[in-house]
């Protein structure tokens, strides 16, 4: 028997085939049909907003005193301070979007339905980034309004129209979106939830701070280039000392994440699922 049965289009779905748009749609369905997504995003929002509000409430009088004495005005730094904690949720969501596929075994079904691995990863990344950008920006604005309410009460409030404020709030969404992608890249590289989250947290909270202790210009540069140090400048109203300006910093973070994602894509294409 040498005749091949024609790969006949079925009566069922003549138009059924893969397109990038459909892969996107499928990834969107994936992220919204697991409960952990909602819980993680809720944690991101609640932790960021509550901590920003609480710290602003506690620090408002001190800020007012400093301003009255002509010292540095710390008010701009307080607006979204809670995001420093809430960001872990964005990292976790990014890591899990990839590692949950491996830990559950879903990856084999996913790659059978969508053997275009790079396209699947790209679609996953786009969906994740979009979700985190929207939730992140909303979180940023809510942090601002609540924290500013506390600062306003002591007459040290900051207007939304002041230079850098809107950029920092949109920047919160941008930073969290790229942080999620950073986590996703670690997830695809390590394929292991605990390992990728641990590495991610270490890079953001521990290494980023420790390298600042390296003396001299080299130390300054290494500190500047650390992912979270570079990326988080876009969230601050005024960039910190010795750090990149907001947009260049964000560009560095985005480039670093892109490199990791490309590396991840190569490995995903090459490795056995």
């Amino acid at each position: 028997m040498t005749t091949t049965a024609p790969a006949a289009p079925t009566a069922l779905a003549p138009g059924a085939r893969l397109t990038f748009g459909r892969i996107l749609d499928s990834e969107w369905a994936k992220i919204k049909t697991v409960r952990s997504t909602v819980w993680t995003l809720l944690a991101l929002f609640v932790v960021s907003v509550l901590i920003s509000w609480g710290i602003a409430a506690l620090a408002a009088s001190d800020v007012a005193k400093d301003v009255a004495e002509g010292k540095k005005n710390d008010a701009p730094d307080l607006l979204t301070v809670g995001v420093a904690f809430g960001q872990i949720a964005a990292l976790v969501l990014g890591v899990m979007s990839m590692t949950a596929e491996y830990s559950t075994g879903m990856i084999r079904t996913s790659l059978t339905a969508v053997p275009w691995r790079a396209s699947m990863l790209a679609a996953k990344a786009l969906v994740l980034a979009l979700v985190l950008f929207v939730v992140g920006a909303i979180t940023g604005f809510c942090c601002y309004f609540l924290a500013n309410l506390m600062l306003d009460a002591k007459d040290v409030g900051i207007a939304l129209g002041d230079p850098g404020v809107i950029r920092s709030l949109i920047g919160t969404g941008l930073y969290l979106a790229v942080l999620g992608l950073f986590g996703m890249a670690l997830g695809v590289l390590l394929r292991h939830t605990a390992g990728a989250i641990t590495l991610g947290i270490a890079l953001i909270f521990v290494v980023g701070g420790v390298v600042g202790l390296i003396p001299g210009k080299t130390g300054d540069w290494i500190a500047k280039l650390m992912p979270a140090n570079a990326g988080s400048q876009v969230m601050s109203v005024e960039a910190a000392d010795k750090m990149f300006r907001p947009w260049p910093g964000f560009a560095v973070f985005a480039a670093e994440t892109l490199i990791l994602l490309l590396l991840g894509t190569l490995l995903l294409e090459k490795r056995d699922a």
Partner: protein
Amino acid sequence: MIVAESLTKRYGAKTAVDDVSFEVHPGRVTGFLGPNGAGKSTTMRMILGLDRPSAGRVTVDGRAYRDLSAPMVQVGALIDAKALHGGRTARDHLVVLAKSNGIPLTRVDEVLDIVGLTSVAKKRSGGFSLGMGQRLGIAGALLGDPRVLLFDEPVNGLDPEGILWIRNLMKRLAGEGRTVFVSSHLMSEMALTADHLLVIGRGRILADTGVAQFIAENSVSHVKVRSPQADRLAELAAAAGWQVSRDPAGALLVQEVTTDQVGDLAGHNGVFLHELAKVEASLEEAFMRLTADSVEYHTGGTPPKTAAEAVPGWGPPTVADRIG
């Protein structure tokens, strides 16, 4: 049609699939039969583009799986019951799959109905039994109404009713002219389901033949004799050049002779017989004989390195066999 050419997969030093070539044709159920660790799942993963062959290639309808533009319409696969996210409901799981290939969502409810999961469609699959997970996997395979179907041990975890159902499903799918490739380690199961057999042992194809032909060629029958003078009869049989052994109850088993021959021999020599019967070897025995031979063939040249290597291919799974 599935075509494998010199397909090989090595995991480190372990060769899981060893230079295998075969064709799986449409219109019939092809059973992929082999003991634990023979390389069935590995072969299927390579067909689906999940594992990359170390050498050789495999195509589905002339193309590598990864180059298919409508994979779910061209190939439906059940890999294992646990290849899904337990946090998703059965329906959502299928919706995710359907969307990626542009399959209409009405089809999701259709396949849920076909596999009998409609009543639990809104339940998270994490709480499903092995059999329910298996049914959901089968639903996913049927989603695109594909021309080629792969099932890796589909009866795993199914109850008798479920086994009967999948047996009939596979026959019906093949009857519709589709290519159906199903793995199993039970010859008896394949004898009931498959039209064609591909037997694999230790990563090599041992037989590629029709089920009926396989049975005819491999099932060796023998004659069982009970006699109060068994020792005398054994001597006579041996003198006649026959192969004789004893079963645990002390009866003689004489290979490759007819009952007539044994009866005549006994009669001529005045030996009383209490039982004289022709015994057909079971299919399972034929299969075990075949795979056991493959082990002898493999270890004939080089002595086995480890105890695990020395265990015949058929037997309790070794630790090495279970990895992955």
